[in-house]
């Protein structure tokens, strides 16, 4: 099966899978690679993506989005190099009108034609519905409750449901995250996050409750955070780019039956609150509600230098959320940079205790 890589949550993996191709989620690697080149003015995430596409990739094509200007230019560079088929999905930044929503739907349809050209098969409504449901069921436990779990494990679980999910019989669990089993929507709370949560945080309810906010996080970032979880932090909300914030909305079965593609548009375009949207009130309202609802005591914002979107939101995060904010800036492809942030993180935790 041909694999199609993507790296933004507004690209529906179930749409790729429904075409008979393998969706391949590319986690962010910014900051994980030692001594990578720093490109002046280029955000480290865009830079890392350029490196991704310059080397061997576990996919035959890639889907990028216009949600960030620098990634839009990365798409142009990769298209110009001609080494990899690239599809650039325009995700409208405005969301108030039917015309932009219709345009996103047209873009998804256009992506479908791209997938067919890569060897995929255009799905009929039944097959699309089944695939959408399969992904919805796999995501369901990730939305259930927000009891603490190591941030890195939760991130891996979310990454897994963005990938190629095996076909399962109705009601059967989908296997994700390596050996983790995430229960189906009907299956209750066994396995997966909940089992691991219980093991990990039992008896540690006095931990400082934190939220992660910001752009993409790398596995190295999450592993680095583990050290702080071990010393008393508990990340009860992952509102980073690939975190729970950008999980699509639950599927409405009636709508799915009526028009599966429109339901796909609804659970993605209509529902995911994003910082790049204009205005981005929906994102901020969502975040405010989650921060209050989960009794978050401090917010760690992951942002990379030259990332305008998150940089520009720092004042509002500080001014309006009512909890202390720690800015964790990534400056480039240098894991040593994390050590510089460690002292600030420790001080932040001490202040919150």
């Amino acid at each position: 099966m041909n694999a199609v890589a993507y790296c933004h949550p507004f690209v529906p993996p179930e749409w790729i899978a429904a075409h008979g191709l393998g969706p391949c989620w590319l986690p962010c690697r910014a900051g994980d690679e030692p001594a990578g080149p720093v490109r002046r003015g280029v955000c480290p995430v865009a830079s890392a993506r350029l490196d991704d596409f310059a080397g061997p990739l576990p996919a035959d094509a890639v889907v990028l989005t216009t949600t960030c200007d620098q990634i839009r230019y990365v798409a142009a560079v990769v298209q110009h190099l001609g080494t990899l088929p690239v599809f650039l999905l325009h995700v409208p930044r405005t969301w108030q009108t039917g015309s932009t929503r219709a345009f996103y739907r047209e873009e998804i349809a256009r992506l479908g034609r791209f997938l067919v050209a890569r060897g995929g098969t255009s799905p009929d409504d039944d097959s699309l519905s089944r695939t959408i449901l399969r992904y919805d069921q796999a995501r369901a436990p990730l939305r259930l409750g927000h009891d603490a779990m190591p941030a890195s494990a939760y991130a891996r679980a979310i990454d897994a449901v963005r990938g190629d999910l095996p076909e399962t019989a109705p009601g059967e669990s989908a296997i994700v995250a390596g050996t983790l089993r995430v229960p189906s929507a009907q299956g209750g709370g066994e396995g997966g996050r909940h089992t691991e949560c219980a093991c990990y945080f039992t008896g540690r309810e006095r931990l400082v409750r934190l939220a992660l906010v910001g752009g993409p996080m790398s596995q190295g970032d999450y592993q680095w955070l583990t050290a702080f979880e071990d010393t008393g932090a508990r990340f009860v909300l992952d509102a980073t780019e690939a975190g729970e914030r950008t999980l699509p909305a639950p599927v409405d079965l009636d709508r799915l039956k009526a028009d599966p593609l429109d339901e796909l548009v609804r659970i993605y375009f209509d529902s995911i609150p994003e910082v790049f949207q204009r205005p981005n009130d929906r994102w901020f309202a969502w975040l405010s509600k989650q921060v209050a609802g989960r009794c978050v005591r401090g917010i760690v914002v992951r942002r990379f230098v030259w990332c305008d979107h998150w940089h520009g939101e720092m004042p509002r995060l500080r001014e309006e959320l009512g909890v202390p904010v720690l800015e964790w800036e990534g400056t480039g492809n240098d894991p040593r940079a994390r050590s510089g942030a460690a002292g600030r993180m420790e001080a932040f935790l001490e202040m919150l205790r």
Partner: protein
Amino acid sequence: MSHAAERITLDQWDRRYAALRAGGLCEPAYGGPLRRHVADGNSRLLKLRMDNSPAALRLWNFLLSEEQRLHQARRAGQRLVGAMKDLGTVPVMAYSLDGVAAFYADGAWWLPCLMENRTGMLELADRLGIDDSFCPVRAMLGAFVSQAHFPLPDLITCSVGATCDDMAVIAQRLATLNFDIFWWEMPHRRPPDPGEPGLVLPGGFSAPRNQVDLVRAELGRVRQALESLTGQSLTDGRLAEGIGRANRVRSVLAELRRLAYTARRCPMPALEMLIAEMLAIHFCSDQAESLLVLEELLAEVRSRVQAGEGPLEESAVRVFWVNPVADLRVMNLLEDAGGRICGTEYLFCHALDPIPEDLPPMEALARMALADPMVGSPVDRAGRIVADVRRFGAEAVVISRIPGASHCGLEGRLIGEIVGRRCGVPVLEVEVPPISDALEPALRTRLEALVETVKEGRAT
């Protein structure tokens, strides 16, 4: 009063102005000596060398009196439209209505340069969390919040989508500070897929039909907002007349560029040509007057071309310039180094192309808006630059980076590689901050090296 064409300092302009007045120079209401703009804070004029023609005097006075003009318009009861990240579309619509003045709020990005960082605009932007990792357009945030420059518009529009993140973020910051922004969507332009309905846009880029339809729908919302603002009906007839007026400005500018960039001897310096080109975006808040200003400049250029005169040596190296400079003085530096401008792509080439008049007006405006070089791939943009480099016979290309701008991180290398390979000319990439004095020796050296490289190539 005849006078040899040359670039002169402000001190020289004082004497020149007195002589012109004594010779009977008639000026519009905003006329006067350039020196008075220094008193208003535009101290960068002291370090510039400007063309010595009455036409250039009028151009500079027109540019530097825009804030006064906007305040006058407000006092006169006109409705003000601030068009953000919109290089040439909404102003055409706004000026189709009566009693409306539209302006380019992003134009505040030149305030730090003109006022040599003494505006406080950047400091205010810093305090509002928009620091120097953003492009100098952040000065606009300070200008809005302080209200120290332009009056607050009655309607603020902002194009988002395939636009630079700096503007999108700064405009969002304005929105969080309770400025009411009218957002409209601009999709990333791409060529039609095989079999997909598409069309060729003004300027030669192509796009699929559904993108034009989206932009037309979005501009339809802008049209409604303008109608609500003014209580007037923005009919197709009015729009067609407005497009016709915009096209007259564009046609004068097109001829001005053709003459200035192809003449054997450069008839008008780079600085004045840059400002002239900028008028096409928003007409400097007075569409009718901008036409007169350009016509006078064109007459001066025609006269100089016929006489074989110009402010620069005939041997000046012909340079194509990509992106506008944050510091106007750098255009002087190029000429000091022995170069001249022969072609430009200041990010708004679509505002220079004629708007189709044989189409329904909203369709024509949508096609024009979608032809914005920034909303498509930089590879497309490079293709247009290649064509213009050849058309104007440029011998070298300078790509000037705008510090912090989201598009400048990657576009320069891509455009440089394509243009250099296809045109066989040297390409230089430089970064120009709002005040480049500290970098001047390095910039000067690099520009001189470029000029010498071309001249050595000529010799062989």
